Protein backbone atom coordinates (compact mmCIF):
# COMPACT_ATOMS: atom_id res chain seq x y z
CA UNK A 1 0.00 0.00 0.00
CA UNK A 2 1.16 3.47 -0.77
CA UNK A 3 1.19 6.36 1.69
CA UNK A 4 0.55 8.77 -1.16
CA UNK A 5 -3.01 9.97 -0.72
CA UNK A 6 -3.31 11.99 -3.90
CA UNK A 7 -2.63 9.47 -6.66
CA UNK A 8 -4.03 6.16 -7.90
CA UNK A 9 -0.96 4.00 -7.53
CA UNK A 10 -0.14 0.66 -5.91
CA UNK A 11 3.41 0.05 -4.73
CA UNK A 12 5.55 3.19 -5.20
CA UNK A 13 8.46 0.98 -6.31
CA UNK A 14 6.36 -0.51 -9.11
CA UNK A 15 5.05 2.72 -10.63
CA UNK A 16 7.35 2.67 -13.68
CA UNK A 17 6.99 -0.99 -14.74
CA UNK A 18 3.22 -0.91 -14.10
CA UNK A 19 2.63 2.25 -16.13
CA UNK A 20 4.66 0.89 -19.04
CA UNK A 21 2.83 -2.43 -18.90
CA UNK A 22 -0.52 -0.65 -19.02
CA UNK A 23 0.66 1.51 -21.91
CA UNK A 24 1.83 -1.33 -24.16
CA UNK A 25 -1.32 -3.34 -23.37
CA UNK A 26 -3.41 -0.38 -24.52
CA UNK A 27 -1.54 0.13 -27.82
CA UNK A 28 -0.46 -3.37 -28.91
CA UNK A 29 -0.48 -2.48 -32.63
CA UNK A 30 2.17 0.21 -32.13
CA UNK A 31 4.33 -0.64 -29.10
CA UNK A 32 5.63 -3.48 -26.97
CA UNK A 33 8.19 -4.02 -24.22
CA UNK A 34 11.65 -4.94 -25.50
CA UNK A 35 13.08 -5.56 -22.02
CA UNK A 36 12.68 -4.20 -18.53
CA UNK A 37 11.62 -0.53 -18.91
CA UNK A 38 12.46 -0.55 -22.60
CA UNK A 39 9.66 0.28 -25.05
CA UNK A 40 10.06 -0.62 -28.74
CA UNK A 41 7.91 -0.55 -31.85
CA UNK A 42 5.53 -3.46 -32.30
CA UNK A 43 6.56 -3.54 -35.99
CA UNK A 44 10.27 -2.72 -36.12
CA UNK A 45 11.51 -0.69 -39.08
CA UNK A 46 13.82 -2.45 -41.51
CA UNK A 47 17.42 -2.77 -40.37
CA UNK A 48 18.83 -0.79 -43.30
CA UNK A 49 17.42 2.36 -41.71
CA UNK A 50 18.84 4.31 -38.77
CA UNK A 51 17.14 3.59 -35.44
CA UNK A 52 16.06 6.60 -33.36
CA UNK A 53 16.42 5.93 -29.62
CA UNK A 54 15.86 8.18 -26.61
CA UNK A 55 16.10 7.95 -22.84
CA UNK A 56 14.61 9.64 -19.80
CA UNK A 57 12.88 9.23 -16.47
CA UNK A 58 9.24 8.29 -16.06
CA UNK A 59 6.64 10.49 -14.41
CA UNK A 60 6.35 12.73 -17.51
CA UNK A 61 3.78 10.63 -19.42
CA UNK A 62 3.07 10.43 -22.27
CA UNK A 63 6.76 11.37 -22.67
CA UNK A 64 8.84 9.76 -23.76
CA UNK A 65 7.47 6.31 -24.63
CA UNK A 66 4.27 7.79 -26.08
CA UNK A 67 6.26 8.73 -29.16
CA UNK A 68 7.50 5.26 -30.04
CA UNK A 69 5.96 4.16 -33.31
CA UNK A 70 6.30 4.11 -37.08
CA UNK A 71 7.77 7.41 -38.29
CA UNK A 72 8.98 8.47 -34.87
CA UNK A 73 11.00 6.67 -32.15
CA UNK A 74 12.18 3.08 -32.46
CA UNK A 75 12.92 2.69 -28.79
CA UNK A 76 12.63 4.57 -25.52
CA UNK A 77 14.71 3.61 -22.51
CA UNK A 78 12.94 4.52 -19.31
CA UNK A 79 14.38 5.38 -15.91
CA UNK A 80 12.54 5.53 -12.62
CA UNK A 81 10.43 8.58 -11.70
CA UNK A 82 12.34 11.71 -12.86
CA UNK A 83 15.58 9.68 -12.93
CA UNK A 84 17.80 8.77 -15.86
CA UNK A 85 17.96 5.09 -16.73
CA UNK A 86 21.34 3.62 -15.85
CA UNK A 87 24.00 2.98 -18.48
CA UNK A 88 23.34 -0.73 -18.16
CA UNK A 89 19.76 -0.53 -19.42
CA UNK A 90 20.73 1.91 -22.16
CA UNK A 91 23.58 -0.34 -23.28
CA UNK A 92 21.11 -3.24 -23.39
CA UNK A 93 18.80 -1.16 -25.61
CA UNK A 94 21.66 -0.19 -27.93
CA UNK A 95 22.55 -3.87 -28.32
CA UNK A 96 18.89 -4.52 -29.14
CA UNK A 97 18.83 -1.78 -31.80
CA UNK A 98 22.26 -2.57 -33.30
CA UNK A 99 22.36 -2.23 -37.11
CA UNK A 100 24.74 -1.33 -39.94
CA UNK A 101 22.90 1.94 -40.60
CA UNK A 102 23.54 2.97 -37.00
CA UNK A 103 21.61 4.34 -34.06
CA UNK A 104 20.87 8.00 -33.34
CA UNK A 105 20.45 8.56 -29.61
CA UNK A 106 18.46 11.68 -28.72
CA UNK A 107 19.54 12.94 -25.29
CA UNK A 108 17.86 15.72 -23.32
CA UNK A 109 20.39 17.91 -21.57
CA UNK A 110 20.05 16.77 -17.96
CA UNK A 111 23.22 15.63 -16.22
CA UNK A 112 21.99 12.12 -15.39
CA UNK A 113 20.78 11.45 -18.93
CA UNK A 114 23.96 12.85 -20.46
CA UNK A 115 26.11 10.74 -18.18
CA UNK A 116 24.25 7.50 -18.89
CA UNK A 117 24.35 8.23 -22.60
CA UNK A 118 28.09 8.91 -22.60
CA UNK A 119 28.83 5.74 -20.67
CA UNK A 120 26.57 3.51 -22.77
CA UNK A 121 27.86 4.94 -26.07
CA UNK A 122 31.46 4.53 -25.00
CA UNK A 123 30.83 0.87 -24.21
CA UNK A 124 28.71 0.36 -27.34
CA UNK A 125 31.45 1.67 -29.61
CA UNK A 126 33.86 -0.80 -28.03
CA UNK A 127 31.65 -3.72 -29.01
CA UNK A 128 31.18 -2.44 -32.56
CA UNK A 129 27.79 -0.74 -32.25
CA UNK A 130 27.50 2.34 -34.49
CA UNK A 131 25.84 5.05 -32.42
CA UNK A 132 25.88 8.85 -32.39
CA UNK A 133 24.18 11.30 -30.06
CA UNK A 134 22.17 14.43 -30.58
CA UNK A 135 21.64 16.63 -27.51
CA UNK A 136 18.59 18.85 -27.01
CA UNK A 137 18.89 22.05 -24.98
CA UNK A 138 15.80 24.04 -25.87
CA UNK A 139 15.15 25.69 -22.48
CA UNK A 140 15.90 29.42 -22.52
CA UNK A 141 15.43 30.10 -18.80
CA UNK A 142 19.21 30.28 -18.25
CA UNK A 143 19.06 33.58 -20.14
CA UNK A 144 18.87 34.72 -23.74
CA UNK A 145 21.91 33.51 -25.64
CA UNK A 146 23.10 31.31 -22.74
CA UNK A 147 25.69 28.64 -23.41
CA UNK A 148 24.13 25.39 -24.70
CA UNK A 149 25.65 23.45 -21.78
CA UNK A 150 23.57 25.51 -19.35
CA UNK A 151 20.29 24.97 -21.18
CA UNK A 152 18.08 22.06 -20.15
CA UNK A 153 16.27 19.79 -22.55
CA UNK A 154 12.51 20.39 -22.32
CA UNK A 155 9.60 19.19 -24.46
CA UNK A 156 11.19 20.45 -27.68
CA UNK A 157 12.63 16.95 -28.03
CA UNK A 158 9.19 15.71 -29.14
CA UNK A 159 8.92 17.56 -32.49
CA UNK A 160 12.59 16.63 -32.98
CA UNK A 161 11.63 12.95 -32.60
CA UNK A 162 9.01 13.47 -35.30
CA UNK A 163 11.44 15.12 -37.70
CA UNK A 164 14.20 12.55 -37.14
CA UNK A 165 11.80 9.62 -37.20
CA UNK A 166 10.29 10.73 -40.51
CA UNK A 167 13.71 11.41 -42.06
CA UNK A 168 15.06 8.05 -40.88
CA UNK A 169 12.03 6.31 -42.35
CA UNK A 170 12.96 7.92 -45.69
CA UNK A 171 16.36 6.27 -45.46
CA UNK A 172 18.50 9.27 -44.47
CA UNK A 173 21.96 8.32 -43.19
CA UNK A 174 23.17 8.85 -39.63
CA UNK A 175 25.18 11.93 -40.64
CA UNK A 176 22.32 13.37 -42.67
CA UNK A 177 19.99 12.92 -39.70
CA UNK A 178 22.39 14.74 -37.41
CA UNK A 179 22.54 17.66 -39.85
CA UNK A 180 18.73 17.81 -40.08
CA UNK A 181 18.36 17.53 -36.31
CA UNK A 182 21.05 20.04 -35.35
CA UNK A 183 19.62 22.55 -37.82
CA UNK A 184 16.26 22.18 -36.03
CA UNK A 185 17.91 22.34 -32.58
CA UNK A 186 19.57 25.67 -33.42
CA UNK A 187 16.20 27.20 -34.27
CA UNK A 188 14.28 25.68 -31.35
CA UNK A 189 13.44 27.30 -28.02
CA UNK A 190 11.15 26.41 -25.13
CA UNK A 191 10.00 28.27 -22.04
CA UNK A 192 8.03 26.75 -19.18
CA UNK A 193 5.73 28.39 -16.66
CA UNK A 194 4.40 26.76 -13.50
CA UNK A 195 1.86 27.96 -11.00
CA UNK A 196 0.88 25.19 -8.58
CA UNK A 197 2.90 22.61 -6.72
CA UNK A 198 2.80 18.88 -7.30
CA UNK A 199 4.06 15.83 -5.44
CA UNK A 200 6.55 13.10 -6.24
CA UNK A 201 4.64 9.86 -6.85
CA UNK A 202 7.07 7.73 -4.85
CA UNK A 203 8.06 9.75 -1.81
CA UNK A 204 5.18 12.22 -1.67
CA UNK A 205 7.65 15.12 -1.53
CA UNK A 206 6.60 18.48 -2.92
CA UNK A 207 8.25 18.99 -6.31
CA UNK A 208 7.34 22.58 -6.95
CA UNK A 209 6.58 24.76 -3.98
CA UNK A 210 4.73 27.75 -5.33
CA UNK A 211 2.34 29.72 -3.10
CA UNK A 212 -1.19 30.37 -4.38
CA UNK A 213 -1.36 33.27 -6.82
CA UNK A 214 2.32 33.03 -7.76
CA UNK A 215 3.70 31.78 -11.05
CA UNK A 216 7.25 31.01 -12.06
CA UNK A 217 8.47 31.50 -15.60
CA UNK A 218 11.42 29.30 -16.44
CA UNK A 219 10.49 26.39 -14.18
CA UNK A 220 12.28 23.16 -15.10
CA UNK A 221 10.38 19.93 -15.50
CA UNK A 222 11.53 18.49 -12.18
CA UNK A 223 10.74 21.61 -10.16
CA UNK A 224 14.15 23.21 -10.61
CA UNK A 225 13.55 26.91 -10.24
CA UNK A 226 13.87 29.30 -13.14
CA UNK A 227 14.21 32.39 -11.00
CA UNK A 228 11.20 34.21 -12.38
CA UNK A 229 8.63 34.03 -9.55
CA UNK A 230 5.97 36.73 -9.61
CA UNK A 231 2.26 37.29 -9.06
CA UNK A 232 0.02 35.48 -11.50
CA UNK A 233 -1.10 37.56 -14.47
CA UNK A 234 -3.71 36.89 -17.19
CA UNK A 235 -3.36 34.30 -19.94
CA UNK A 236 -2.76 37.00 -22.54
CA UNK A 237 -0.08 38.75 -20.50
CA UNK A 238 1.65 35.44 -19.74
CA UNK A 239 1.57 34.33 -23.37
CA UNK A 240 2.80 37.71 -24.64
CA UNK A 241 5.74 37.75 -22.23
CA UNK A 242 6.74 34.21 -23.17
CA UNK A 243 6.49 34.86 -26.91
CA UNK A 244 8.62 37.95 -26.43
CA UNK A 245 11.35 36.01 -24.59
CA UNK A 246 11.31 33.16 -27.12
CA UNK A 247 11.50 35.59 -30.04
CA UNK A 248 14.41 37.39 -28.41
CA UNK A 249 16.23 34.06 -28.31
CA UNK A 250 15.30 32.90 -31.82
CA UNK A 251 15.27 36.30 -33.56
CA UNK A 252 12.94 35.27 -36.37
CA UNK A 253 12.76 37.50 -39.43
CA UNK A 254 9.50 38.74 -40.90
CA UNK A 255 7.99 36.03 -43.07
CA UNK A 256 9.67 33.15 -41.23
CA UNK A 257 7.66 29.97 -40.89
CA UNK A 258 7.20 29.04 -37.25
CA UNK A 259 6.33 26.05 -35.12
CA UNK A 260 4.17 26.84 -32.08
CA UNK A 261 3.29 24.10 -29.59
CA UNK A 262 1.61 24.60 -26.24
CA UNK A 263 2.34 21.63 -23.97
CA UNK A 264 0.20 21.25 -20.87
CA UNK A 265 2.23 19.90 -17.96
CA UNK A 266 -0.57 18.19 -16.04
CA UNK A 267 -3.16 20.25 -14.21
CA UNK A 268 -3.70 23.09 -16.65
CA UNK A 269 -6.82 22.41 -18.71
CA UNK A 270 -7.03 22.35 -22.48
CA UNK A 271 -9.45 25.25 -22.09
CA UNK A 272 -6.59 27.35 -20.70
CA UNK A 273 -4.05 25.98 -23.18
CA UNK A 274 -6.30 27.03 -26.07
CA UNK A 275 -6.60 30.55 -24.64
CA UNK A 276 -2.80 30.75 -24.30
CA UNK A 277 -2.29 29.47 -27.83
CA UNK A 278 -4.67 32.08 -29.23
CA UNK A 279 -2.65 34.95 -27.83
CA UNK A 280 0.70 33.42 -28.74
CA UNK A 281 -0.49 32.95 -32.32
CA UNK A 282 -1.66 36.56 -32.51
CA UNK A 283 1.65 37.78 -31.12
CA UNK A 284 3.55 35.90 -33.82
CA UNK A 285 1.20 37.18 -36.53
CA UNK A 286 1.74 40.76 -35.36
CA UNK A 287 5.47 40.23 -35.82
CA UNK A 288 4.86 39.19 -39.42
CA UNK A 289 5.52 35.51 -38.68
CA UNK A 290 3.56 32.62 -40.11
CA UNK A 291 2.63 29.66 -37.93
CA UNK A 292 3.34 26.73 -40.25
CA UNK A 293 2.97 23.94 -37.71
CA UNK A 294 1.07 24.01 -34.45
CA UNK A 295 -0.27 21.76 -31.76
CA UNK A 296 -1.94 22.01 -28.36
CA UNK A 297 -1.41 18.85 -26.36
CA UNK A 298 -0.03 17.31 -23.20
CA UNK A 299 3.18 15.82 -24.57
CA UNK A 300 5.44 16.06 -21.52
CA UNK A 301 3.84 16.40 -18.10
CA UNK A 302 5.10 17.04 -14.57
CA UNK A 303 2.56 15.12 -12.50
CA UNK A 304 -0.27 17.42 -11.32
CA UNK A 305 1.74 20.59 -11.72
CA UNK A 306 -0.20 23.46 -13.26
CA UNK A 307 1.48 25.28 -16.10
CA UNK A 308 2.64 24.76 -19.63
CA UNK A 309 5.63 24.85 -21.91
CA UNK A 310 5.63 27.06 -24.98
CA UNK A 311 7.75 25.44 -27.68
CA UNK A 312 8.73 27.53 -30.67
CA UNK A 313 10.97 27.01 -33.69
CA UNK A 314 11.83 28.64 -36.97
CA UNK A 315 11.18 25.90 -39.51
CA UNK A 316 12.98 25.10 -42.73
CA UNK A 317 10.88 23.60 -45.52
CA UNK A 318 12.12 20.05 -44.92
CA UNK A 319 11.24 20.33 -41.22
CA UNK A 320 7.70 21.39 -42.15
CA UNK A 321 7.40 18.45 -44.52
CA UNK A 322 8.58 15.96 -41.89
CA UNK A 323 6.26 17.43 -39.23
CA UNK A 324 3.13 17.77 -41.36
CA UNK A 325 3.22 15.34 -44.24
CA UNK A 326 4.96 12.19 -43.06
CA UNK A 327 3.08 9.38 -41.40
CA UNK A 328 3.44 8.54 -37.71
CA UNK A 329 1.45 6.00 -35.74
CA UNK A 330 3.06 6.73 -32.34
CA UNK A 331 0.17 6.53 -29.84
CA UNK A 332 0.58 10.13 -28.66
CA UNK A 333 1.67 11.77 -31.94
CA UNK A 334 -0.31 10.38 -34.81
CA UNK A 335 0.08 11.96 -38.24
CA UNK A 336 -1.92 10.65 -41.17
CA UNK A 337 0.60 11.85 -43.74
CA UNK A 338 0.27 12.46 -47.44
Amino acid at each position, binding site marked *: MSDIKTKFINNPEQVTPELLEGYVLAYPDQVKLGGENIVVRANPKSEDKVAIVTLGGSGHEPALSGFVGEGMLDCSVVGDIFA*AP*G*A*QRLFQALQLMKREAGILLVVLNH*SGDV*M*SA*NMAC*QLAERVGIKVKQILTHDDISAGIGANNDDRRGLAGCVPLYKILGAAAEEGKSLDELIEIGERFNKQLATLAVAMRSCTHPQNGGVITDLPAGIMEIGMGQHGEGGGGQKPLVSADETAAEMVDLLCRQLQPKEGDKMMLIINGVGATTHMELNIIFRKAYMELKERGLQVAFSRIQEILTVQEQAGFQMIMAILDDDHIDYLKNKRSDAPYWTTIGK
Partner: protein
Amino acid sequence: MKTLTIDNFKIMLNNALRHIKEREEEFSKLDAVIGDGDHGQAIVTAMSAIVATAQKGTEFKAMLNDMGFDVMLQVSGSTSTLLGAFFLGMSDTVSGTELDAVAVKAMFAGGLANVQKQTKAGKGDKTMMDALIPAVEAIENSDSADIKEILEAGAKAALDGTAATVDMKANFGRARNYGERSIGYADSGASSWSCMFAAFAEAL
Protein backbone atom coordinates in the same frame (compact mmCIF):
# COMPACT_ATOMS: atom_id res chain seq x y z
CA MET B 1 61.59 -2.63 -10.62
CA LYS B 2 61.86 -3.38 -14.37
CA THR B 3 58.56 -5.18 -15.05
CA LEU B 4 55.06 -4.80 -13.73
CA THR B 5 53.11 -8.05 -13.40
CA ILE B 6 49.36 -8.56 -13.17
CA ASP B 7 49.77 -9.35 -9.48
CA ASN B 8 51.76 -6.12 -8.91
CA PHE B 9 48.98 -4.20 -10.58
CA LYS B 10 46.30 -5.85 -8.41
CA ILE B 11 48.28 -4.89 -5.32
CA MET B 12 48.38 -1.28 -6.57
CA LEU B 13 44.61 -1.27 -7.04
CA ASN B 14 43.94 -2.80 -3.63
CA ASN B 15 46.19 -0.22 -2.00
CA ALA B 16 44.34 2.56 -3.81
CA LEU B 17 40.99 1.29 -2.58
CA ARG B 18 42.29 1.05 0.99
CA HIS B 19 43.57 4.65 1.01
CA ILE B 20 40.49 6.00 -0.73
CA LYS B 21 38.24 4.29 1.85
CA GLU B 22 40.25 5.87 4.67
CA ARG B 23 39.67 9.32 3.22
CA GLU B 24 36.04 8.85 2.07
CA GLU B 25 34.65 11.43 4.47
CA GLU B 26 37.27 14.02 3.52
CA PHE B 27 36.42 13.68 -0.19
CA SER B 28 32.71 14.11 0.53
CA LYS B 29 33.31 17.19 2.66
CA LEU B 30 35.38 18.78 -0.10
CA ASP B 31 32.66 17.96 -2.61
CA ALA B 32 30.00 19.52 -0.37
CA VAL B 33 31.68 22.91 -0.74
CA ILE B 34 30.49 23.19 -4.34
CA GLY B 35 28.52 20.03 -5.07
CA ASP B 36 26.21 17.47 -3.57
CA GLY B 37 28.76 16.04 -1.15
CA ASP B 38 28.70 12.49 -2.39
CA HIS B 39 32.14 12.17 -3.98
CA GLY B 40 33.55 10.06 -1.15
CA GLN B 41 30.84 7.49 -1.48
CA ALA B 42 30.99 7.66 -5.28
CA ILE B 43 34.74 7.02 -5.54
CA VAL B 44 34.65 4.21 -2.96
CA THR B 45 31.75 2.50 -4.75
CA ALA B 46 33.45 2.85 -8.13
CA MET B 47 36.88 1.69 -6.93
CA SER B 48 35.27 -1.27 -5.14
CA ALA B 49 33.66 -2.40 -8.40
CA ILE B 50 36.97 -1.94 -10.24
CA VAL B 51 38.95 -3.93 -7.68
CA ALA B 52 36.36 -6.73 -7.60
CA THR B 53 36.63 -7.19 -11.37
CA ALA B 54 40.42 -6.90 -11.35
CA GLN B 55 40.68 -9.89 -9.01
CA LYS B 56 39.46 -12.14 -11.85
CA GLY B 57 41.99 -10.79 -14.37
CA THR B 58 44.70 -12.97 -15.90
CA GLU B 59 45.91 -10.69 -18.70
CA PHE B 60 46.29 -6.88 -18.80
CA LYS B 61 44.16 -6.00 -21.83
CA ALA B 62 41.07 -8.02 -20.97
CA MET B 63 41.35 -7.20 -17.28
CA LEU B 64 41.47 -3.43 -17.82
CA ASN B 65 38.68 -3.61 -20.38
CA ASP B 66 36.45 -5.62 -18.01
CA MET B 67 37.24 -3.20 -15.16
CA GLY B 68 36.05 -0.29 -17.31
CA PHE B 69 32.90 -2.06 -18.51
CA ASP B 70 31.91 -3.29 -15.06
CA VAL B 71 32.31 0.01 -13.25
CA MET B 72 30.25 1.82 -15.87
CA LEU B 73 27.54 -0.82 -16.00
CA GLN B 74 27.32 -1.26 -12.22
CA VAL B 75 27.77 2.27 -10.90
CA SER B 76 26.06 5.43 -12.19
CA GLY B 77 27.52 8.91 -12.03
CA SER B 78 30.35 11.02 -13.31
CA THR B 79 33.01 9.47 -11.06
CA SER B 80 32.27 6.05 -12.48
CA THR B 81 32.26 7.36 -16.06
CA LEU B 82 35.65 8.98 -15.72
CA LEU B 83 37.29 6.11 -13.84
CA GLY B 84 35.78 3.65 -16.31
CA ALA B 85 37.06 5.72 -19.22
CA PHE B 86 40.51 5.79 -17.64
CA PHE B 87 40.79 2.01 -17.34
CA LEU B 88 39.23 1.40 -20.78
CA GLY B 89 41.81 3.76 -22.27
CA MET B 90 44.59 1.95 -20.41
CA SER B 91 43.44 -1.32 -21.97
CA ASP B 92 43.89 0.10 -25.49
CA THR B 93 47.69 0.06 -25.47
CA VAL B 94 48.61 -3.01 -23.41
CA SER B 95 48.93 -6.74 -23.94
CA GLY B 96 50.26 -9.77 -22.11
CA THR B 97 50.83 -10.35 -18.41
CA GLU B 98 53.96 -8.24 -17.82
CA LEU B 99 54.71 -4.63 -18.73
CA ASP B 100 58.08 -2.90 -19.02
CA ALA B 101 58.62 0.80 -18.30
CA VAL B 102 57.75 1.85 -21.87
CA ALA B 103 54.52 -0.15 -21.76
CA VAL B 104 53.57 1.29 -18.36
CA LYS B 105 54.02 4.83 -19.69
CA ALA B 106 51.92 4.02 -22.77
CA MET B 107 49.23 2.46 -20.58
CA PHE B 108 48.79 5.61 -18.48
CA ALA B 109 48.92 7.83 -21.57
CA GLY B 110 46.14 5.74 -23.12
CA GLY B 111 44.07 6.19 -19.96
CA LEU B 112 44.38 9.97 -20.04
CA ALA B 113 43.64 10.12 -23.78
CA ASN B 114 40.34 8.31 -23.27
CA VAL B 115 39.33 10.45 -20.27
CA GLN B 116 39.96 13.53 -22.41
CA LYS B 117 37.36 12.22 -24.86
CA GLN B 118 34.78 12.31 -22.05
CA THR B 119 35.41 15.73 -20.52
CA LYS B 120 36.34 19.14 -21.85
CA ALA B 121 37.92 20.09 -18.50
CA GLY B 122 41.62 20.88 -18.62
CA LYS B 123 44.33 21.96 -16.20
CA GLY B 124 43.23 24.92 -14.11
CA ASP B 125 39.50 24.18 -14.17
CA LYS B 126 39.61 22.78 -10.63
CA THR B 127 38.61 19.21 -11.46
CA MET B 128 40.19 15.77 -11.22
CA MET B 129 42.06 16.66 -14.41
CA ASP B 130 44.34 18.88 -12.29
CA ALA B 131 45.65 15.66 -10.75
CA LEU B 132 45.39 13.33 -13.74
CA ILE B 133 47.01 15.45 -16.45
CA PRO B 134 50.19 16.31 -14.46
CA ALA B 135 50.43 12.74 -13.20
CA VAL B 136 50.40 11.24 -16.68
CA GLU B 137 52.70 13.94 -18.03
CA ALA B 138 55.22 13.19 -15.28
CA ILE B 139 54.96 9.46 -15.93
CA GLU B 140 55.55 9.95 -19.65
CA ASN B 141 58.40 12.41 -19.11
CA SER B 142 60.19 10.35 -16.49
CA ASP B 143 63.58 9.17 -17.81
CA SER B 144 63.79 6.40 -15.24
CA ALA B 145 63.53 2.77 -16.31
CA ASP B 146 62.38 1.84 -12.82
CA ILE B 147 58.61 1.48 -12.65
CA LYS B 148 58.33 2.42 -8.98
CA GLU B 149 60.30 5.63 -9.66
CA ILE B 150 58.11 6.40 -12.66
CA LEU B 151 54.95 6.01 -10.60
CA GLU B 152 56.47 8.07 -7.78
CA ALA B 153 57.01 10.90 -10.26
CA GLY B 154 53.35 10.55 -11.27
CA ALA B 155 52.21 10.57 -7.64
CA LYS B 156 54.20 13.69 -6.80
CA ALA B 157 52.84 15.57 -9.82
CA ALA B 158 49.27 14.51 -8.95
CA LEU B 159 49.65 15.70 -5.35
CA ASP B 160 51.21 19.01 -6.47
CA GLY B 161 48.43 19.45 -9.01
CA THR B 162 45.83 18.83 -6.31
CA ALA B 163 47.47 21.31 -3.93
CA ALA B 164 47.29 23.91 -6.70
CA THR B 165 43.50 23.51 -6.91
CA VAL B 166 43.12 25.10 -3.45
CA ASP B 167 43.65 28.57 -4.90
CA MET B 168 41.64 27.94 -8.04
CA LYS B 169 38.10 29.06 -8.73
CA ALA B 170 35.83 26.30 -9.97
CA ASN B 171 35.45 26.84 -13.67
CA PHE B 172 33.69 23.77 -14.91
CA GLY B 173 30.22 22.25 -14.98
CA ARG B 174 27.69 23.09 -12.32
CA ALA B 175 30.45 23.90 -9.82
CA ARG B 176 31.19 26.99 -11.90
CA ASN B 177 28.03 28.59 -10.49
CA TYR B 178 29.59 28.58 -7.03
CA GLY B 179 32.73 30.30 -8.32
CA GLU B 180 34.30 32.21 -5.46
CA ARG B 181 32.98 29.87 -2.77
CA SER B 182 35.29 27.12 -4.03
CA ILE B 183 38.49 29.09 -3.36
CA GLY B 184 40.40 27.84 -0.33
CA TYR B 185 39.41 24.19 -0.74
CA ALA B 186 41.10 21.49 -2.81
CA ASP B 187 38.96 19.90 -5.51
CA SER B 188 37.43 16.63 -4.30
CA GLY B 189 38.08 14.77 -7.57
CA ALA B 190 41.69 15.90 -7.81
CA SER B 191 42.12 14.80 -4.18
CA SER B 192 40.79 11.30 -4.75
CA TRP B 193 42.67 10.79 -8.03
CA SER B 194 45.96 11.95 -6.49
CA CYS B 195 45.26 9.61 -3.57
CA MET B 196 45.00 6.80 -6.12
CA PHE B 197 48.28 7.72 -7.84
CA ALA B 198 50.07 8.02 -4.47
CA ALA B 199 48.76 4.60 -3.47
CA PHE B 200 49.87 3.09 -6.78
CA ALA B 201 53.47 4.23 -6.19
CA GLU B 202 53.45 3.28 -2.50
CA ALA B 203 52.28 -0.28 -3.25
CA LEU B 204 55.35 -1.23 -5.28
